[in-house]
């Protein structure tokens, strides 16, 4: 076991963790805005990947334009979902379980809609980043990993800048903290929630298109990746944006290392074992403020 090999594994783990982090950020944004567990968010990832495939492979558009279009469609979808289903349930003062089941219903609907449109078999996505590894001080890294890390990091920084430095972002944070006070201060709560959903869904869709070249694009990809990202978000603290990033990256790295060092058999359980270990020590996640019993 050389140091180079270890660094290689960590870098590709960070890249995978980056996509987890992007999805987890969406879960946290949505939780902060509406206090609901939105399982349909996982399907935004899948829809993003399929839209990217359609724009890039079937329509022949450039990759980055396809990413942008998939992202735009994804956020439109998120806004529509909130406006139609969640808005109605909120007015009913529906319980958490009801929101959850409704989101599962949306998820089942989307998976089967995608199956009808794109078929039950997976699609290969061309490796747009180039398959030849770059050598750096003896460490061989796939260009794909670097691109994902670069895009992920810039999106996280952009989100951070938007939420902390712009007036609009401050409004979103105010609404996430206290809806009533925010509305007294003149923030349009409804519009703010819609914007939150748009941003969260856009991040999810980007994660989907970034994942596409690494995996087969299938209708159940949102389920497997999304549930792990959800676990990462909760491990980081479901109300904490830094927690989502740290949780996502940690899950990605440890998953990859356990694969390389121990066995790939139990790969899919790693995220959840981590989640349970974190919750045993900190019931509100690493950076979470809520959920504490006292």
């Amino acid at each position, binding site marked *: 076991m050389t140091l180079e090999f270890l660094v290689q594994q960590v870098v590709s783990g960070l890249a995978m963790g980056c996509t987890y982090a992007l999805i987890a950020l969406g879960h946290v944004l949505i*939780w902060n805005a509406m*206090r*609901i*567990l939105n*399982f349909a968010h996982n399907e935004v990832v899948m829809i993003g990947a399929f839209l990217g495939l359609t724009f890039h492979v079937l329509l022949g558009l450039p990759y980055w334009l396809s990413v942008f279009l998939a992202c735009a469609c994804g956020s439109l979808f998120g806004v529509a979902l909130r406006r139609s*289903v969640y808005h*109605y*349930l909120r007015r*009913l*003062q*529906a*319980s*958490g*379980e*009801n*929101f*959850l*089941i*409704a989101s*599962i*219903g*949306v*998820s*089942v*609907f*989307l*998976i*089967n*809609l995608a*199956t*009808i449109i794109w078929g039950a078999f997976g699609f290969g996505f061309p490796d747009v980043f180039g398959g030849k590894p770059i050598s750096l001080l003896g460490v061989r890294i796939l260009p794909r990993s670097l691109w994902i890390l670069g895009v992920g990091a810039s999106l996280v920084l952009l989100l951070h800048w938007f939420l902390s430095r712009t007036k609009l972002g401050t409004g979103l944070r105010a609404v996430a903290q206290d809806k009533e006070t925010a509305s007294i201060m003149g923030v349009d709560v409804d519009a703010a929630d819609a914007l939150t959903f748009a941003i969260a869904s856009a991040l999810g869709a980007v994660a989907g298109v970034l994942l596409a070249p690494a995996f087969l694009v299938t209708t159940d990809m949102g*389920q497997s990746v999304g*549930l792990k990202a*959800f*676990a990462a978000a*909760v491990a980081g603290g*479901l109300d904490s944006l830094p927690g989502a990033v740290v949780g996502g990256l940690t899950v990605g790295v440890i998953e990859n290392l356990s694969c390389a060092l121990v066995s790939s*058999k*139990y790969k*899919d*359980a790693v*995220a*959840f*074992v981590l*989640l*349970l270990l974190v*919750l*045993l020590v900190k*019931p*509100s*996640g690493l950076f*979470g403020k*809520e*959920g504490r*019993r006292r």
Partner: protein
Amino acid sequence: MTRVFSLLATLVLLTFPLVVRHTYYVHLGVMILISAIACSGLNLVTGYAGQLSLGHAAFVALGAYSSALLTTELGWSVGLSFLASLAITTAFGLVIGVPSFRLRGPYLALATAGFGEIVRVVITNWEGLTHGSRGVTDIPAPGPLAPLVGLAREQAWYYVCLLCFALVITAIQRIIRSHVGRDLVAVRDSDRVAEALGINTFACKLLAFSMSALAGGWAGVLYSHYMEYVSPDAFTFGESVAFLSMVVVGGKGTVWGPLVGAIVLTVLPDLLSFLQDFKMLFHGLLLVLAMMFLPGGIVDTPGQLLLRRSRRSTDEPVGVGTGD
């Protein structure tokens, strides 16, 4: 009114396999009862105690695999392995219940989902014990029950499951009607207030978790010996979610809700089969619509309509939040 309804329901449940003799429909009946047993357990923890669980399929899996392996590998009798499997799943329920005491809302939901995924991954990959994704085959059926009373195999199983369902639901109803049940509901509505009133919330949640695991394990044992085959595919996250959907669509926190939910969501794909490829699309759509228009579940709906009529617009639906 409710008494007449209960009597009618009991009559239908008792005579169903004698009136509808078609094997496939009796098979559906068996599957409904097995789901209803599992869901009654989930209902105790989620409906009454208000602890959202997304890993119930894990308990069903533990029950199914324990009994399957004890009978096929160690040659235990079905009765003995049944009791041992219940003990094993209840023990797991306790193990899960202790740490979950500190978790609330989404944290508990994802922790239970995580537990479910871990169980599924271990079952799929621990080939030496579970035969991996090939599953366990040739699981023996309990004694020569069927020929004794002149019933077909499915019919006999239907009555076995009905008896088990009756036992489980009676036990749960006794818990709910006792002071423990009132404590559980108090914990659901606000565990801080419940604690201030001197209720031992820890014991309450632990009891709810272990009882729900027991019911889940029970359903699992029935499932494995009825199907004579188990594989990890039957215990996915989707299955946990399906159990929760049955509880919520039927009516969480009601005695008959889990059964009604199990009936509706088991029969629905069959009824929708004329839609062919669009079947599951509509299944998802109907779940969403049920949440939008029957928020309290099917069992609760007549009551809600009456309430709305008598109280008009002052009526505020009561919900169990996950976060607050």
